[in-house]
């Protein structure tokens, strides 16, 4: 083989192996190679950038987790209290008690702390006027530090003249939290005055009559299921709290729940699992389930998880974005997203994955059962970032306050 490496001057012999001298590469081929190399370089560069973006996204997601109590009292007040009690603390006439001039704010700090931790469900007299108090519990959405910051800020601004000397810290809140671990809301001003501070002015009597216990047949549906219908609680949780794409049911208006169940059967709302379950229910059972869940109160187990921009979400929820013809969520779903029975469901403490998925479904036309197509237009106007932002924001809100009305009374929800 070796001797054939160079052309032989002698006539070709039979072991001759044809060969070719290297030819230069044509310019177009070289050009393409150069272009590909540049492209490769660019891609590598962009990839390096993209890793940064991905890390930033994950950092945002982490940052969107429940706040760690770094916000000041003023910021927390604006975000947590002002939607109902108003930025200047005057409340809303005949609906939301004022903080300005409130005896409860001026009282010893454990009064406000306990109200924030457990919420109120019952009549209350503030600054000489009576209110039908329904305030949410913040214990599942605010850490001790933030509750302390809010109490100190509000007392300083609206309440006790010497409250700065009586400022409380997170240890105080932790101690207060452990005092009544299993109680629900305070049953109005009377109970607060009796238990927490006897110097408060006289209060209207708490609403009489206990909450009707739920229908045992409905409870059986919820806990055990029936026939082909799985137990409600097997997905929605024993307290109706849901998770991820399974919605929170606790605190939704009774009429809304019943309507959704009917819509599943009628094919106006699509989810095979729910259609199957709903089709086994009678109309009475749907109403019964609605009543049960509308009355059920459970702590929030939702947290921002989609990496949405919470400030943008807050803006969309409170003010909307009129440049997109999007009104604020709260302008229909009630202040702080507590819902307006029977048509407008509560949004507070709903799971971001569920909220965002529903908005995507409205926008994509897979869900179309809103009155006057209200949600369709809004969901279409919002882009993906906006949907994640607003879904994440709503998950930071405290769950719907308790409203211990008689069973089946929708208007009282």
């Amino acid at each position, binding site marked *: *083989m070796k001797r054939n490496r160079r052309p032989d001057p002698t006539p070709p012999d039979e072991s001759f192996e044809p060969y070719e001298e290297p030819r230069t590469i044509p310019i177009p081929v070289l050009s393409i190679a150069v272009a590909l190399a540049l492209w490769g370089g660019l891609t590598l560069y962009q990839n390096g950038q993209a*890793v940064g973006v991905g890390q930033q996204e*994950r950092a945002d*997601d982490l940052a969107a987790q429940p706040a760690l109590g770094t916000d000041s009292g003023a910021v927390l007040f604006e975000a947590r209290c002002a939607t109902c009690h108003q930025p200047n603390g005057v409340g809303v006439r005949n609906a939301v008690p004022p903080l300005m001039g409130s005896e409860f704010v001026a009282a010893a700090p454990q009064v406000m702390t306990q109200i924030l931790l457990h919420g109120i469900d019952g009549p209350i007299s503030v600054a000489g006027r009576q209110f039908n108090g329904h305030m949410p519990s913040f214990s599942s959405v605010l850490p001790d530090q933030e509750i302390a910051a809010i109490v100190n800020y509000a007392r300083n601004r609206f309440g006790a003249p010497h409250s700065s000397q009586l400022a409380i810290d997170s240890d105080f809140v932790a101690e207060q939290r452990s005092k009544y671990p299993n109680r629900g809301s305070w049953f109005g001003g009377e109970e607060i005055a009796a238990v927490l501070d006897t110097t408060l002015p006289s209060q209207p009597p708490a609403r009489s009559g206990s909450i009707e216990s739920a229908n045992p047949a409905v409870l059986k549906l919820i806990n055990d299921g029936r026939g*082909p219908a799985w137990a409600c609680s097997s997905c929605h949780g024993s307290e109706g709290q849901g998770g991820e794409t399974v919605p929170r049911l606790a605190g939704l208006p009774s009429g809304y729940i019943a309507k959704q169940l009917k819509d599943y059967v009628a094919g106006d709302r699509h989810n095979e699992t729910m259609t*199957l379950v709903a089709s086994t229910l009678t109309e009475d059972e749907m109403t019964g389930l609605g009543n049960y869940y509308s009355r059920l109160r459970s702590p929030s187990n939702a947290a921002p998880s989609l990496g949405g921009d919470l400030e943008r979400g807050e803006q969309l929820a409170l003010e909307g974005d009129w440049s997109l013809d999007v009104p604020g969520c709260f302008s229909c779903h009630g202040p702080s997203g507590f819902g307006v029975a029977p048509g407008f469901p509560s949004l507070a403490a709903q799971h971001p994955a569920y909220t965002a998925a529903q908005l*995507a479904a409205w926008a994509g036309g897979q869900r179309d059962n809103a009155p006057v197509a209200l949600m369709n237009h809004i969901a279409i106007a919002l882009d993906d970032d906006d949907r994640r932002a607003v879904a994440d924001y709503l998950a930071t809100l405290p769950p719907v306050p308790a409203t211990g009305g008689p069973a089946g009374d929708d208007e009282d929800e």
Partner: protein
Amino acid sequence: MNRLLPLSIVALGILAFATLMLVVVPGMQIRSQSPSPGLLPYTQAELRGREQYVSLGCLYCHSQQPRASDQAPDDQRGWGRASVASDYVYDQPHQLGTMRTGPDLLNVGARLPSQAWHLTHLLQPRAIFDWSIMPAYPFLFEQKPAAEPGDVVVALPPGYAAQNGVFVASQQALDLVTYLQGLDRTYPALPDAVRDDGYAEPDDEGRKP
């Protein structure tokens, strides 16, 4: 053939380089990953269920790797955030899957937490989704004239229910469902977690690196 030696050296060199870049370096990168905070090791029952998952070949239709929103709308489907390497620390071998014939299952436990639902669905997917193309797994269930104490009876709509008697879940079915219920990576990923971020693009507004 001429120049056999240099040819072999170059070929082996390319192979070695490729092995280094595609196998050794990523291997080292992955091996250095600790479990995501929030990720728990599988329980015994989950591990038994995982064996069922492997042996039944769920992998051939179900992935366990949700993509980033820049790649696919997996988050809007409710499949969860894009997974990272640390999410798979306890998976030996991993069940990432490449075929997405069915939905991604990495967060199915968070999405569908009901044991009863999963049992119905395994016994007969079409009992729930009339369009489903998933095979049924009747051999994981036993038809009995009546349920005995301790038996888990499968809820079935009319038309799918047993003519006489009931369907009872076997231990394998229960284990598999336990594994599925445990598939939940909804905790947030750490910023420095490893994944292919090649698709992440800075938006016009916000989310810039």
